[in-house]
């Protein structure tokens, strides 16, 4: 074997190259395996909850309606000015408020009470029920979005319904 102290940079013999190449490939494979293991262990299934809930067309809700959207923790109202929505999550410690007969809500956890449109009446809740954003989707249906916040005076005015009196044919005669 060539002695190391005669030549500070001995040329790479074929055996040395083979050993080096082997080691390089093994390191690369090992690196890929380590990266793969990291990715494998890091996966978490999406625990996203739905935030958009689709409802009926505006004509389906007459003025004065209050609809609790199932599964959404929200209520949608229509008054003379238009549509608005309120979150049914109590601002105190996050419990879901329940509707009561007089149109308001009460919170089962610590007794907060809210008026029909979400105003805070009594109890430890720090604020009114929050206003949620409403929109119309491309089919003209109402959609409530749990992630959008609006103030209590905000309204969605629906587009005017298709009016009668557009051009009518007289009977079926051709």
């Amino acid at each position, binding site marked *: 074997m060539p002695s190391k102290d005669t030549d500070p940079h001995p040329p790479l013999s074929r055996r040395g190259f083979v050993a080096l190449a082997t080691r390089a490939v093994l390191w690369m494979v090992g690196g890929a395996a380590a990266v793969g293991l990291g990715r494998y262990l*890091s996966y978490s299934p999406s625990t996203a909850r739905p935030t958009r809930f689709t409802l009926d067309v505006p004509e389906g809700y007459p003025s004065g309606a209050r609809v609790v959207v199932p599964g959404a923790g929200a209520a949608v109202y229509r008054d003379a000015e238009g549509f608005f929505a309120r979150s049914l999550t109590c601002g105190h410690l996050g419990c879901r408020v329940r509707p009561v007969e007089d149109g308001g809500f009460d919170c089962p956890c610590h007794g907060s009470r809210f008026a029909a449109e979400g105003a805070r009446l009594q109890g430890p809740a720090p604020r009114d029920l929050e206003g949620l954003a409403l929109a119309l989707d491309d089919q003209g249906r109402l959609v409530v979005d749990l992630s959008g916040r609006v103030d209590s005076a905000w309204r969605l005015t629906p587009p005017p319904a298709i009016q009668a009196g557009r051009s009518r044919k007289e009977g079926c005669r051709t």
Partner: protein
Amino acid sequence: MKRPSFFEHLHPPSIPEPQARFRYTLGLGGLSVFFFLVTTVSGALLLFYYAPTYEQANASVQLLQYHVPLGWLVRGLHFWSAQLLVATSGLHLLRVALTGGFRAGRRFNWLLGLGLLVLVLGLDFTGYGLRWDASIGWALLVGTNLLRQIPLAGETLFGWFVGGPELGAATVLRLFGWHVFGLMLPALGLAVWHLFRVRRDGGIAHASSVEFPVRRLPRRELVGREVVAMLIAGGCLLALTSLAAPALDGPLDPAAMSEQAHAPWFFLAVQELLRWGNPLWLGVILPAVALLALALIPYAIDRGRLLGRWFPSDGRLSQVLAISLAIGFGVLTLRAALR
């Protein structure tokens, strides 16, 4: 002088060269160890995602197969290394039978190996069941009902595997318990003992070296050969996994099972046997008798003394027995597969 590490202690400082010849052992025992290791490591990784409940079992396998990064690879490696383990174990058994490796001094190790084979088959079967999909329903039903056939202990054994009067939510949990611990720990124990006995009984069976001097293979070279074998086997395993994924069907509903009724490939022979009649005789007693015959080879059937070669001339009876059992198994399996 540098002292040997733990891993180097797994091998003796040198072994007689004839023992290590590939054409002698075919490396089947070593391959079995490799596949056992891959199965164990991949199984441990699967534990992070597999959910052993009735509602979630199949869905968690789907999550692994389709959504977890490289989950398909871990699952596929686990499946293929397990099937290859069963294959190499069986072939290793045949090799030892046909080279007289069970002869005097190694008889108990032969029994340990047989026990290990039974445990590996049990692990493969319970592993199939954990998929909990429509394709394994019949296999589970038949397999557990076969247990019931055993006189006296049958109902109890059935209860231990099914966890109730019929296949249901408790069964998934039980299969999981058996697969990950109940069969696995004894298998680990037997495997370690089996490998220890190989060394204690004098290494791989070989002709006595008194007659002629033998070259000895140093430990480093032996390990080098094993590393080569593991690398090639690993590459083939990865390629196989990439090209062929294990099947996955929708969740099992024991009340509404699919029309296909197929045993897993290693039990196809038993399924074929069962077509002929009595489940106790054909499904329990006949396989048990075959196992007993194998177990008795070193003790009652074989009387020879030659070691270290294929088809020793003083072992015809045991060779015929081993080959007929292998052919019988193969023919039955083929018939069932071609239906």
